């Protein structure tokens, strides 16, 4: 795993200037979209454009300065991509807010709440980069992270703080704020999986008995991780959260495959997924209904398939370049501001913008995999891979669901759709990725040759870091 990409004949440049340039463009996307929303819906440039733009700029500049200070070698593309997606998402949510307000709906301050959550996300991003100077520290908390992740997943079952919203019991309510602890749990489980797998990957890959075509590892090597995985899956199934269980399953499989370098795991995982899907289809009525809606959406149109069919109508009407912000009817789709935000984009900005957004996610995942490739330590590799896999799977499940490629499951579109917990957790994910990439791209520290006489265990040694 650590064979290639470690001793390359070049050093990475810092590229902070390139990051600043891209951030300016990203801000133009975010603030430009906000202005276009005002012009399209109300016919005037929004009155609070300067205040809003200033706030967004301050957040982004704060994040950029932090990266310059504490992670100077970090990847230059990740932060701008995230800033652009977040800014565009805010503008689209604002556009829906304006229509909800005009239609006299109670809830029409999603954009303001989202901006608050983004502020919290950026603060946590800055705090993560400042406090966590070396991601390998997290390896010490392998089991703590796993336990904490599972506890967070259980929290919604607790009687007082647990909440059931829209049929899924995945919320907790603390002092008036509702929060999805599962979003944080997935980051913790990535840390736990990578910490465990990096220590036991040799045992998992080499020691074991061959059953049929697959080398099964010994129970004591696989046990702890299987327990961690099984418990989290069970909780998610009990919570009736199909999207997240799919996400965790894919994440677990990807990390196991990369850690052990055994394609057999993909076969096992594929079979397990098939069996699980079949069982869910026959046993759970909800799943069967979703399959039917997916296969024959028009048969159920004014009824249960209202949401996906309206989204398809909207995207079809939007066509190549869309109706223009404020000139479509995206509010017809229920939850257009969260799960179905991509259909809003498709209706008002067209396929052109949807392709750009999907490409942005592709680039984020590419950067995560790149970080995994060039990272010098196994823990960082696995963690970067896991974090990238989370984003990739989440985007695939959501975009596939909204566009009708796969049956619909509820997950938030990272950074784009309304959802505080997801936004905050994803900003921390980006901070962790930047921290790993800073370590990976930094030139290797140099040790001066030591004399035998001074190289006893008592002498301390100065390690140059630049």
């Amino acid at each position: 795993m650590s064979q290639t990409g470690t001793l390359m004949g070049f050093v990475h440049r810092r590229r902070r200037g390139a990051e600043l340039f891209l951030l300016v463009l990203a801000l133009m996307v975010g603030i430009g979209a906000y202005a276009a929303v005002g012009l399209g819906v109300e016919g005037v440039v929004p009155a609070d454009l300067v205040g809003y733009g200033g706030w967004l700029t301050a957040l982004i500049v704060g994040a950029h300065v932090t990266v310059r200070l504490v992670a100077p070698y970090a990847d230059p593309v990740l932060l701008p991509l995230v800033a652009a997606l977040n800014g565009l998402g805010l503008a689209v949510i604002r556009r829906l807010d304006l229509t909800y307000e005009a239609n006299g709906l109670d809830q029409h301050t999603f954009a303001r709440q989202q901006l608050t959550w983004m502020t919290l996300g950026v603060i946590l991003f800055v705090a993560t980069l400042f406090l966590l100077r070396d991601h390998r520290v997290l390896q010490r908390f392998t089991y703590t992270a796993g336990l904490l992740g599972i506890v967070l997943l259980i929290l919604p079952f607790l009687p007082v703080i647990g909440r059931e919203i829209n049929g899924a019991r995945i919320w907790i309510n603390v002092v008036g704020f509702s929060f999805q602890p599962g979003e944080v749990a997935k980051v913790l489980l990535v840390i736990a999986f990578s910490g465990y797998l990096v220590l036991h990957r040799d045992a998992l890959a080499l020691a074991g008995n061959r059953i049929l075509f697959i080398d099964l590892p010994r129970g004591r090597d696989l046990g702890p991780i299987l327990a961690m995985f099984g418990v989290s899956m069970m909780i998610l199934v009990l919570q009736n959260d199909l999207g997240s269980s799919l996400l965790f399953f894919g994440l677990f499989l990807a990390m196991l495959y990369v850690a052990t370098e055994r394609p057999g795991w993909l076969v096992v995982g594929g079979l397990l997924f098939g069996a699980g899907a079949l069982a869910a289809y026959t046993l759970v009525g909800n799943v069967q209904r979703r399959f039917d809606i997916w296969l024959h959406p028009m048969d159920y149109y004014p009824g249960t398939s209202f949401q996906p069919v309206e989204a398809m109508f909207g995207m079809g009407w939007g066509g190549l370049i869309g109706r223009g912000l404020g000139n479509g009817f995206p509010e017809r789709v229920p939850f257009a501001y969260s799960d179905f935000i991509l259909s809003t984009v498709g209706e008002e900005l067209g396929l052109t913008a949807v392709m750009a957004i999907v490409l942005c996610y592709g680039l984020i995942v590419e950067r995560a995999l790149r970080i995994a490739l060039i990272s010098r330590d196994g823990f960082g590799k696995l963690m970067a891979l896991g974090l990238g896999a989370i984003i990739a799977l989440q985007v695939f499940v959501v975009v596939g669901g909204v566009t009708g490629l796969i049956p619909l499951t509820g997950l938030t579109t990272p950074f784009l759709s309304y959802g505080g917990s997801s936004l905050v957790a994803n900003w921390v994910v980006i901070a962790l990725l930047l921290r790993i990439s800073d370590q990976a791209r930094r030139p290797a520290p140099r040790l001066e040759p030591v004399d035998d006489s001074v190289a006893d265990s008592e002498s301390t040694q100065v390690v140059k870091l630049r």
Partner: protein
Amino acid sequence: MSELTLFLIRVAFLAILWIFVLSAISVIRSDMFGARVPETARGNAPAPSGRKSNGKPRKPRRGAPTHLLVVEGENPGVRAELADAPLLIGRGSDAAIKLDDDYVSTRHARVAASGDEWFVEDLGSTNGTYVGPVRITQPTTIGIGVQVRVGKTILELRK
């Protein structure tokens, strides 16, 4: 607000969005190919880039190390020529320096060159690799006479 203005706004916004995406891609492209060879690797003679020179046996410069020698441990005197780099150290049969040390992992560490410098890299061993008194966590440069400890064995680069 006329229809045409709105159309122009929409097209302008889509253009900005794509300019952003394409700039991001171009930064990634330049990041991939635009990195420099480190100052130290240039040295006196302009060194070829590390990747190319890794495979070929190089003519040793004066004062450059030629072999890796076990100086202490179960198998003292075992040596491997640096011309065969990268060298694998471990208990496995594919290791260039095969050690019978119980505290050494099957694939324990690796010695490889980058430019004119030699690096030792731990391959995720159980007991770690030490350069001097320091346990290394990433590829570390070693010079002639620097003691690299794996398990109970000590290795050195020699001329």
